[in-house]
């Protein structure tokens, strides 16, 4: 029957629908990125002039402070990812096992956090971490403190993990809720202890969800700017702050561009790694916009 329609030109066919968005992105996204990358190879401070096109990159990696911040950013992103997995996995698991009413409550808490303004959430932690704020009031009530946590890396990690937790929880919950409990039961009926059934059956089935959420959190954490700016201090700044300082304060477009390229390559490398690992497996929902069409 379908062949009958073949003769009729499809009214909305063709790639021309892509043209407006492509043109827009080309001018206001791809072109700026290309300009920034070009600057990183063409614009130099006096010290790097004459070193060749890679002067800014050589400067970046020769400067210990830069490498320290790059490593710190990587470590912070890794810690944040691990923390969010450790909290999100039990949370998502409990969500799949409680009554519908409790599931709604737990989901509502995640969604409310997810949709609340980022600046509000950063500000909330700023208030909580004040010297005479809630945290120290609580510590004082049990005879501890006061602690000066504001401006430290732990403050940044606590804030970032909370802000990124929904990005881990939502894909993970989707993944866990699609696991057939019958498989775990089958393993146990064949003699596996509950811990073995979990490790050998449930955990592998949940791995794609953990990987998808983990990648998302890690990549987002690498580029975090607001949280370290509000909760951290210049002594433990992260990579994004370094880029902003170079560009906004020092107007060193070449150096800032080189750093942006480094961050970009790290991000792409992480995505590429994930792509390779999950190759031939269906991609997790955050990275997939098209379903298979017949």
């Amino acid at each position: 029957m379908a062949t009958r329609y073949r003769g009729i030109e499809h009214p909305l066919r063709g790639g021309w629908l892509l043209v407006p968005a492509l043109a827009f992105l080309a001018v206001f996204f791809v072109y700026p990125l290309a300009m920034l990358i070009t600057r990183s190879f063409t614009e130099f401070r006096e010290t790097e002039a004459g070193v060749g096109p890679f002067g800014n990159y050589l400067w970046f990696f020769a400067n210990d402070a830069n490498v320290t911040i790059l490593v710190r950013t990587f470590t912070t992103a890794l810690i944040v990812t691990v923390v969010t997995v450790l909290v999100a996995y039990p949370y998502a698991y409990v969500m799949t096992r409680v009554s519908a009413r409790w599931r709604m409550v737990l989901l509502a808490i995640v969604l409310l956090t997810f949709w609340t303004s980022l600046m509000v959430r950063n500000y909330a932690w700023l208030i909580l971490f004040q010297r005479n704020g809630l945290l120290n009031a609580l510590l004082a009530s049990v005879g501890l403190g006061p602690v000066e946590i504001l401006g430290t890396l732990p403050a940044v990690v606590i804030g970032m993990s909370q802000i990124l937790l929904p990005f881990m929880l939502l894909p993970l919950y989707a993944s866990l809720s699609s696991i057939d409990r019958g498989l775990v039961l089958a393993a146990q009926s064949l003699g596996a202890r509950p811990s073995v059934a979990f490790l050998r059956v449930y955990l592998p089935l949940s791995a794609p969800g953990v990987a998808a959420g983990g990648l998302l959190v890690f990549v987002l954490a690498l580029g975090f700017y607001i949280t370290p700016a509000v909760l951290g201090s210049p002594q433990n700044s992260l990579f994004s702050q370094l880029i902003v300082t170079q560009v906004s304060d020092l107007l060193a477009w070449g150096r800032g561009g080189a750093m942006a390229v480094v961050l970009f390559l790290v991000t792409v490398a992480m995505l590429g790694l994930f792509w390779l690992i999950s190759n031939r497996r269906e991609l997790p929902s955050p990275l997939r916009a098209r379903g298979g069409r017949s």
Partner: protein
Amino acid sequence: MSATRVRDPERNSGAVWRVLQVISGIGALWLLVPMLIVIPMSFTGSRSYRFPPESWSFRWYENIVTDDRWLSALGTSLLIAVIVAVVATTLGTAAALGLSRIRIRGAQVLNGLFLSPMILPVVIIGVAVYLVFLNFRLVNSPGGMVLAHTVLATPYVVVAVAASLRGFDTTLERAGASLGAAPLRVFLSVTLPIIRPGVLAGALFAFIASFDELVVSIFLVGPSVRTLPVQMFTSVAQESDPTVAAVSTILMVSTAIILLLVVLAQRSEPRRAP
């Protein structure tokens, strides 16, 4: 004999379950408490973040209304977000439709390009856009802010509309055309009603992406365009100003109401036959 060791999979009990419950409880508190702290803080009587507040007042809410920096920032943010939602929804819906219709090998690449503003560290986009917009005279201009936010917002529309296009039967459109409808008519009376939930969700995402945007905005602000998140960020950086707590409380309550409305709207949405 070993069968006696099989646990009832529907039974939640035991030490492990308790531990999981405790961790989830901590997770829930960790998500909620910081935000809830902001509410009592917005009613403090003094210009400090001492908790609990020593006295209470509405002065920070009055401050929002009397200090025109806050109202004008809110107005600017709302206006920009509405324009961004309209532009991004138009671009994103067309792009998602286009992506679902081409079968060339480059579709995956194009898809990656459309989603990349969502994945790429925002600070990179901010620096790049700042560099080019300085030359285009688009820094410190509402137009520049709209253009930059649209770059960030369009991927959300593409994702939302693409999701609603999954399983969409294009034969319906051919049928419409075979009955003599013009392409625009086909889109408005066949395609759009089917993908409407995706388009509306995409528009909402785009609005929020713009209204909440801070990193790129920090580069593009100036005396003639200052958005609400930027106003909050600069206030926080400069002084302890509980006006930010009052603004935050209003934003949180609005978010909760919108979330509730969305849930209710989804419930009342008539279910389509598959």
